[in-house]
């Protein structure tokens, strides 16, 4: 069982400021159902730029709810310049600390706040997004770099605790290490290139991987996948059955198939769907 402080328990069991603000000036949403937690933050600002009300809606564990509640309490009465300076550490401290594995809940609070402020200032569009490093949780290099810097993180495990990156399949661990090293000013030795495969060997390995790793999962959902062609590093596939119809599955599926093929065959493969 997690060891939560009394303050975390209090903000979880009696969360402050739950709900929506219909005419909010700032709205920021982070997380998703798939990831297991999500926060939607609302605030209202008076004419002097002071936050007069803040509310939240959260799907997630006790510390996610407590962090959201804490954040709204902190925000009320602040002006935007002060609000902008709130760090994830401040949220955790307000609660008397969070278990290390739950620090990502405080980071979620900070991210939602940042988005809400951008929204208020009409800057949502021009933010630099970075490149996705962790596919499982959709975390970018910029987010990782920033959190490593701000919280003095040193290991991949730290990064997972704070932003979840690396907590799924683990394929991005090398990349995360590189980011940590670049922040801390260390060099990583370049990874060794894989020994080359002939085209025929590659196709055979792709076929085997589809059969062993991918088809069984699709068949459970009444779908199937067919290998159409391999063109260099491009793998052309066709989807059948329910998978072909489910629009939302496309992204998941492409990632899933691609990840598996990259894991078992070669890291540079890309998957394309043909109709």
């Amino acid at each position, binding site marked *: 069982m997690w060891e939560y402080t009394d303050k975390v328990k209090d903000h*979880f069991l009696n969360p402050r400021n739950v709900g929506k603000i219909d005419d909010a000036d700032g709205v920021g949403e982070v997380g998703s159902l798939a990831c297991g937690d999500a926060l939607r933050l609302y605030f209202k600002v008076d004419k002097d730029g002071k936050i007069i009300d803040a509310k939240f809606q*959260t*799907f*997630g*564990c006790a510390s996610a709810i407590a962090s959201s509640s804490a954040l709204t309490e902190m925000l009320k009465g602040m002006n935007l310049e002060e609000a902008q300076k709130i760090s994830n550490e401040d949220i955790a401290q307000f609660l008397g600390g969070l278990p290390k594995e739950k620090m990502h809940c405080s980071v979620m609070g900070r991210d939602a706040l940042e988005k809400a402020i951008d929204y208020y200032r009409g800057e949502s569009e021009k933010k630099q997004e970075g490149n996705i490093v962790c596919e499982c949780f959709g975390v970018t290099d910029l987010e990782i770099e920033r959190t490593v810097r701000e919280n003095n993180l040193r290991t991949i495990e730290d990064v997972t605790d704070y932003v979840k990156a690396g907590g799924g399949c683990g394929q991005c661990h090398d990349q995360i290490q590189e980011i940590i090293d670049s922040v801390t000013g260390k060099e990583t030795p370049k990874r060794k290139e894989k020994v080359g495969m002939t085209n025929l060997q590659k196709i055979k390995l792709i076929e085997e991987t589809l059969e062993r790793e991918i088809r*069984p999962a699709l068949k459970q959902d009444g779908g199937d996948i067919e290998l159409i062609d391999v063109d260099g590093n491009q793998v052309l596939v066709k989807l059948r059955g329910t998978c072909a119809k489910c629009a*939302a599955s496309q992204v998941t599926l492409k990632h899933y198939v691609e990840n598996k093929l990259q894991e078992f065959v070669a890291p540079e493969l890309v998957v394309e769907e043909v109709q």
Partner: protein
Amino acid sequence: MMHIVYMDNNATTKVDPQVVEEMIPYFMESYGNPSSMHILGGQAGIKLKEARVNVAGLIGAQPEEIIFTSCGTESDNTAIWAALKSNPGKKHIVTTRVEHPAIKNLAEYLAKNGYRVTFVPVDRKGRLDMDFFYESLTDDTAVVSVMWANNESGVIFPIEEIAPVLRDRGIVFHSDAVQAVGKLPVNVEKVEVDMLSLSGHKLHAPKGVGALYVRKRTKFSPFLMGGHQEKGRRGGTENVASIIGLGKAAQLALERHEEVNTRVRALRDRLEKELLERIPNSMVNGDQEMRLPNTTSIAFEYVEGEAILLMMNELGICASSGSACTSGSLEPSHVLRAMGVPFTAAHGSIRFSLSTYNTDQEVEFIIKKLPPVISRLREMSPFWADREGLANAVCSVQ
């Protein structure tokens, strides 16, 4: 003090008072080492023998086919390594996608260290894909390990159907029956597995004691090498008191099978039915027919499991969850994911596992107290109001 409603018996059980009573003399009175040639050793030795008879009796085995271990995990590891070591030429292992980590993590380790491992998938109801299973068997298959019943969904696998096929093909068959023993009649005379694991703390004996059944004439080599204990099959001075406790628990379990299958089953069924009726957007994970009589895993959509557990905890209700936040990992349980339970439901899945200690009043209490907890968390969730738009947005492929 608040009354605790304990419905987490698949995690561990209360030690039965009769078990404790049986154990006590072996701490401070008859505390000898059973190998010793004196009265205190002799007293312990006799009781150990009696425990072996009782544990064997619970599963229809011969006493000399029982090896006492330190836990279910050790039994599982011992079985797999023994099978691999006695079939050095064979490099293939077949198991399932929903095994307990005691098998799963070992199999994943072996897959990276010279073995080929097939993880047989399950369907949406948690049932094994039997065609896939049979097709995966080869002449290179050294061992098959399939759990008797799943700890999360409670789904029971067709061990009885698989056993003769493997016997004919000369493939060693191990079953992790940690969740089945004590809840179901498990009989190795009728169902010809070669090895079978069980664990004390799932059947009202203490934690830290288990047993491995090894059928006569099955090739075996020890996992813990050491002294001559357990006929050289498991080194280490026996955990005398706990083994004696396990023996007593085995005896009690045999007497209580009927009660588990009738009274406890009825409690579970009532709890499940009422919760599904009273809480919208909830459903059972797993096959409701072929299932342990004490277990139900219910998914409450759009809420997160840890939050539910902690709110239930405030009310004195103990259960467990398949959500990511409780497992210490960031992804929901591998069992629910293997079943293709969508994320909307996997994160909010709660497992209730009952025992003979549970009562009608306790079921009544949960039925009354849980629906408001779920509504409260749903009111807080940004997805609850938007659920129509989300229903199709999540694909179970993962």
